[in-house]
């Protein structure tokens, strides 16, 4: 799921659901068992990506659930029947996501004050949508983009320019020079795991640490559907990119390490903006534990993982 770092979790989820819909449409199974078996294999593959993306895994589990219920209730096994069931489920997800996003954006916009200077970093659909909505509502604010990998920063810059949002770009390692003018930090995330760590874009850890120390309010935008409702893996699951370069000016070879994600303690964030409103880390932990217990019960009932 290397795509996630390029497009953000929410958009990746949309892409995955659309991809699944089209794949099911094109699929020609050799019978009901073949279809279910192949779907289960796909679900297993989705479950084992690194990092695991809860939102997507949950959707696959739900569809698996829908398919199994349908299998028990009906006796039809035609391709059209399965497709119809899945399309219905996907439509429901999309509808649900739309409402959630609206609520989250509303909560985000209401947190913005006049003359805010907001620091953003990663490609987060929720953060960017909030800024766009705030602009639409005529809020007076400015954005500072912490410059990271050029492709990602370019995407953010393109959107801000398109929406006529006032912004400037500062390299992420030079943020201390603009620290004083920043009033809020808006960040997105891939997930929150069972150890109450936020899995987020590489570089976020340094930004959160810096602004946590300088007591600037740090806002995390995350839907509660993104929570990883399983035990976090103990190993360091983020991929590394190693490359050995030879500088043209001097024959020096060195290793350049790159990491895909950071893990940041949830407690470092001051406000967590969800579809349920604005909360603090303690409240989020309670919601997480409640959802985790519900999921455990559900898992025991339906799944073999």
């Amino acid at each position, binding site marked *: 799921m290397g795509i996630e770092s390029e497009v953000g979790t929410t958009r990746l989820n949309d892409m995955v659901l659309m991809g*699944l819909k089209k794949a099911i449409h*094109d699929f020609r199974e050799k019978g009901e068992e073949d279809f279910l078996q192949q779907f289960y294999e796909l679900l297993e593959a989705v479950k084992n990506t690194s990092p695991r993306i809860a939102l997507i895994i949950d959707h696959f589990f739900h569809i698996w659930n829908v398919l199994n219920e349908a299998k028990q209730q009906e006796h039809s096994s035609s391709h059209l029947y399965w497709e119809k069931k899945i399309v219905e489920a996907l439509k429901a997800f999309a509808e649900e996501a739309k409402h959630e996003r609206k609520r989250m954006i509303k909560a985000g916009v209401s947190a913005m004050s006049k003359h805010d200077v907001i620091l953003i970093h990663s490609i987060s659909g929720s953060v960017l949508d909030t800024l766009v909505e705030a602009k639409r509502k005529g809020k007076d604010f400015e954005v500072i983009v912490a410059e990271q990998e050029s492709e990602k920063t370019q995407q953010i810059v393109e959107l801000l320019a398109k929406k006529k949002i006032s912004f400037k770009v500062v390299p992420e390692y030079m943020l201390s020079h603009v620290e004083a003018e920043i009033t809020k930090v808006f960040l997105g995330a891939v997930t929150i795991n069972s150890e109450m760590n936020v899995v987020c874009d590489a570089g976020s850890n340094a930004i959160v640490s810096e602004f946590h120390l300088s007591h600037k309010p740090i806002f995390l935008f995350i839907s509660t559907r993104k929570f990883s409702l399983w035990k976090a893996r103990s190993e360091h699951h983020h991929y590394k990119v190693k490359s050995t370069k030879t500088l043209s000016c001097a024959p020096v070879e060195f290793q350049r390490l790159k990491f895909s994600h950071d893990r940041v303690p949830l407690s470092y964030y001051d406000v967590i903006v969800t579809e349920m409103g604005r909360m603090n880390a303690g409240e989020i932990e309670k919601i997480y534990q409640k959802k985790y217990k519900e999921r455990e019960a559900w898992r025991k009932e339906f799944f073999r993982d």
Partner: protein
Amino acid sequence: MDTLFYIAIAIFVISFLAIVFDVFPKSLVAMTGALLMVLFGVLPFDVALSAVDLETIGLLMGMMLMVDIVSGSGVFSWLSVKLTKLTGGKPWLIFILFALITALGSTFLNNVTVLLIVLPIVLALTRGVGLDVKPFVIATIFYSIIGGALTLIGDPTNVIVGTSVGLGFNDFLFNMWIPISAVSVLVLIFFGIFKWHSLKPISGNLRQLFISHLLIQKIEYKFGRQELSKSFIAKVLLILFAVILGFVFGDFVGLNPTIVALLGAMVLFFMTTKHSSIYESLTKVEWPTLLFFAGLFVMVAGLKEVGALEMIGNTFIELTQGHSFLAMLLVLLWLAGIASMLIDNVPFVTMMVPIVLQIQDTLDPSLPLDQMWWAMALGACLGGCGSPIGSSANVVALGLAEKSGFVITNKEYLKIALPLTLMMLGVCSLYFVVLLS
């Protein structure tokens, strides 16, 4: 034979070997060789300057400038994304549609430019789904070279032949379309038969289908989010179309292709001042390539000056004496084909043009002498497919595949490309046999 003869031969052979084995940058070697020809008195300076074929250089420069503006408009990326969507992830459709766009693109644009646009998408689609990328990469290389062979401006060797001999855009199109169509079909059949396992439908594999559709969406998002300026694209397409018309009809009104290309580029700059800059585009012109050509022209002129080319030509005539004109064509086709597999075809063709002209002087003028140019052009272009170093398209495409984590070894490449190239040259031979019979 005097000392100058041996000096000229030594300069040329050493430079040629250094170019073939990539000892130093090609342009550096060619320019140094040219300067040495002047320094040692093989050629007077003014003769050396006039030996540089500005028609070839101008045509290449004009096309490079146009390609830069056209690429900047995003129209090719947009077209590739549309094609990607159209494939629906079906391997055989990816194969056919991208082969088609590569071939079509290469007829008017530098084939390396076309590969740089098309190949990353082909690689992303095929690699992600877990397909064997080899047939896709190799077919893309083949079609970029095949497409380039069709037109005057599609391949540097055609530019050299066309501008040196005065063959126009239409001459290439009318004389090359039959063999080029035949080899295009041959390549399609070859991959269809021998690589079907990589091209067959994936409709029975849900996982592959899913990844395929996911990748299509990613490609759509990545390339499709680029904001395109409709007016910019319209202007680019308009001028591109006008330039093609200029190439096609220029022959009838005596409009030189070099003038058409340079004029097209200049008009495009004037019409797209908001989106393009001549200063930036001039930095994108491949000056090393142009200097390489200039150096080669001077070196070949040096060989001509000391009578070396005449000697090679006479040897060729002696070897083919008593044989039919057809045999001479086939020797030329295969010689150019095999040479292009092993060495850079540009110096080879640059050297061969005056030799062929000399041979033509000794032949019966009632013979279809122009066929010699088509035989050489076909051999020089298509032969480039036969080995990993046969043309710059191969080197670039294999490099791109390697960057994406897919190493196609020389052995793997040769296993597919060599027999297929020999078959293509065989089909071209058959074409000449039929044509002359």
